[in-house]
């Protein structure tokens, strides 16, 4: 497995294959499928072909035109994956874009995450901004809202969406200016235990549901309990 290592620090291109380390600090292009222990992009790197690696770090600009498989992907720069991503652990403090769907165990967003299709993970935590074109599914969804995030659907066991602390000064004021206050927009939210703040959704379904300040929910279906904050709007409430 321990192949040779390559390092591109000027401008260059290499062909795919099996490598130990791939380091791109200048401007580099890798043509063909790559398997590597470690990939580090601190300059601008373009990977044309499938990529499999233990660890991928992008602090510059990384572009992957096909599927990416990794144990760990850390983005602090800008990273675009055109295909699907199968990544056990994703930590993004930069800008991460995935053109397909994402499958993994742990996702932490503190920058921006954009997934065109589904995002499936065991744990999803965000203190950044995200946009999920399909279903966001996780056992634990923990979100601290910053900026405007959206997902077509959210489903899981525990879903906890909190507004930034500025909210305690009164939402009506905050909504007028929306300075630094984040929101979440979703079509459908389903979970066993749901806590929402500053969230707009068509339907919320859950066992125990807490609708906090700043929420606008079309319809809530709950099984055990429902609490609604006075500064929240709920169209319909249905107990099943």
């Amino acid at each position, binding site marked *: 497995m321990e192949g040779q290592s390559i390092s591109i620090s000027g401008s260059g291109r290499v062909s795919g294959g099996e490598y130990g380390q791939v380091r791109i600090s200048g401007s580099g292009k890798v043509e063909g499928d790559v398997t590597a222990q470690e990939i580090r992009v601190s300059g601008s790197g373009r990977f044309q072909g499938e990529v499999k690696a233990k660890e991928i770090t992008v602090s510059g600009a990384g572009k992957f035109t096909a599927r990416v498989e990794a144990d760990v992907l850390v983005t602090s720069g800008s990273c675009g994956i055109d295909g699907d991503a199968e990544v056990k652990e994703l930590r993004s403090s930069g800008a991460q874009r995935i053109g397909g769907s994402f*499958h993994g165990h742990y996702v932490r967003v503190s920058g921006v995450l954009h997934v065109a299709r589904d995002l*499936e*993970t*065991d744990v999803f935590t965000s203190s950044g901004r995200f946009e999920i074109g399909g279903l966001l*599914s*996780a*056992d634990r969804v923990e979100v601290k809202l910053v900026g405007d995030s959206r997902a077509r659907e959210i*489903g*899981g*066991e*525990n879903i906890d969406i909190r507004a930034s602390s500025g909210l305690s000064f009164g939402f009506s004021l905050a909504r007028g200016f929306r300075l630094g206050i984040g929101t979440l927009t979703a*079509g*459908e939210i*389903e*979970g*066993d235990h749901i806590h929402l703040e500053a969230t707009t959704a*068509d*339907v919320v*379904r*859950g*066992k125990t549901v807490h609708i906090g300040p700043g929420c606008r929910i*079309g*319809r809530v*279906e709950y099984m055990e309990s429902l609490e609604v904050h006075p500064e929240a709007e709920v169209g*319909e409430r249905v107990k*099943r």
Partner: protein
Amino acid sequence: MFCYTGLRSAHDRGNGGAMDEDLIAKKDVLEQTGISYGQLYRWKRKGLIPEAWFIRKATVTGQETFFPREKILTRIEQIRSLKEEQSLDELVHILAPESTPEMVKCDDPSLLAPVGTEGRRLMWKDRGYTFGELVALACGAHALRAGTRPAEAKLLVDLVRGAEEAVRDPTGITALLGEKSLDQEGFSVRLTVGVLGHEPVKLDRESRVKHRVDVEKVAEQVKLALREVA
């Protein structure tokens, strides 16, 4: 007799496939089985519940998700009864259609309940049956048990045997035997045809369905039976 294989592309299954099936709303699944949203989403993530079973429909109260009733309830039952002894990841190998055992070699298919002694007369070699071939045999045996003639059951076996792709991803696939009668000027002919395709499979009005096999269900039964034998 002739065979016709009609596999549609992967894109147009699901919505069309379930039109005539009996559906159950997601919340009713939870209520009836007592499972939680967390479990349902977890099983979906693990691939234990196929994507194609999630059918989104517009209702008076907005979008809702439905499932093919029998399939989802059976699957949840299976997951629960197997979960006692297996981890979720092991379950995926047993139940999920996309993880078809590729390396299976079975020397005596009649030991597997879905094939059984009825299936013995459909066998065409002494040993070394692959998974796809076992599913084909089981489909034939299924027809024999329902009283179909062996020659017709063989038709079904050949049909499924030749459709590797269908066995690898059998969600929503049906194999059936149709019969068409032609009566003309004093003599009549009855033709039996084998048809394989995604539901809804339609025959013309002058043909009738003699026997219908849910390939997905049979593939699952074979998988479970293989485990019991091992």
